[in-house]
């Protein structure tokens, strides 16, 4: 919210601890005031004469990351750069560029980091398929382990983990009334 002044640039490395803290407090206060003010005044809408084109732009912008405030999409963010880039997308769409062309345009400038849905390429293979590999590997390990255990038990001629005496005792416990303590 408080990025509405042009960019915040890079903060100084935390040398002025106290100054930075009070600066942050001031920013919070300012943010609160802005939110309160915005609630009363309502935000001025950005220019967009054609509602369909505007929806298209927002839909595209919602898949792209704003680099100035990295956990927001270009559609969500009010950072000056996001406003500029929305305008850029609007103009490119008006020129008849496809979604793919616009993504390539932004990717060429800001890198793959702008894509919330990263492209499948050699350095993202692990990201895309890692979870599936781990899942399949885990299932395979489970299957092999269970098969081995079964084979071992069969080879030893054991059909139950309990000895005869234990099995009798278990049966006896099961037969007893559930309310009574069996260990007394």
């Amino acid at each position: 919210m408080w990025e509405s002044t042009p960019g915040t640039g890079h903060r100084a490395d935390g040398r002025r601890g106290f100054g930075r803290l009070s600066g942050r407090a001031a920013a919070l206060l300012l943010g609160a005031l802005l939110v309160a003010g915005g609630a009363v005044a309502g935000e001025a809408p950005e220019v967009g004469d054609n509602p369909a084109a505007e929806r298209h732009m927002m839909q595209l912008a919602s898949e792209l990351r704003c680099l100035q405030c990295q956990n927001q999409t270009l559609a969500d963010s009010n950072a000056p750069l996001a406003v500029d880039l929305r305008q850029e997308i609007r103009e490119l769409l008006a020129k008849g560029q496809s979604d793919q062309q616009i993504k390539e345009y932004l990717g060429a400038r800001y890198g793959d980091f702008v894509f919330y849905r990263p492209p499948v390429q050699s350095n993202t293979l692990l990201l895309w398929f890692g979870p599936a590999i781990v899942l399949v590997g885990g299932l395979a390990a489970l299957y092999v382990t269970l098969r081995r255990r079964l084979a071992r038990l069969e080879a030893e001629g054991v059909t139950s983990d309990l000895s005869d005496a234990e099995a009798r005792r278990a049966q006896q416990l099961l037969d007893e009334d559930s309310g009574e303590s069996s260990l007394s």
Partner: protein
Amino acid sequence: MAATRKSLVVFLPLVGFLVMSWFLYKGLFLDPREVPSPLINKPAPDFRLESLASPERMVDRREMLGKVWLLNTWASWCVACREEHPVLVEFARTATIPIVGLNYKDTRADGMRWLTEFGNPYVDSAFDQAGRVGIDYGVYAVPETFLIDKQGVIRFKQIGPVTPELLHDTLVPLIQRLNA
């Protein structure tokens, strides 16, 4: 044999844990604000902008061909630029290469006042009021600095202030190599 294998298997979760810890530990020292630029080793985007000092003079990227040069994005509203500025002024005093400024989303009056007040390390500053050239260069947080070679190819990008250490350890050796 089976026993050895079994005892090794017992350590697998520990190994997994250590691998994960290592990644998480490394993650502590990564700055998510430093996004690698896709423009490294690509031709620097063309621009032709009015000079900050005078609308009659144009700053054109093509005029820099044949030189190794720095393009430094700055703005009078940028706090970190103020910290970086003395480093650039000092570098410009001794440097063998030109620094071109890209005055980003600023006003002429504020920009000129800043240069008068803090010194002007730039051979010229291009006035990018709309931030369009900034978009072409993938600028997302001022200051950012690009080192561009004689063929007009971007060789290095610094996100955030240029420090004396960065100059000494990285930029100066790189400039010497590019000028060789």
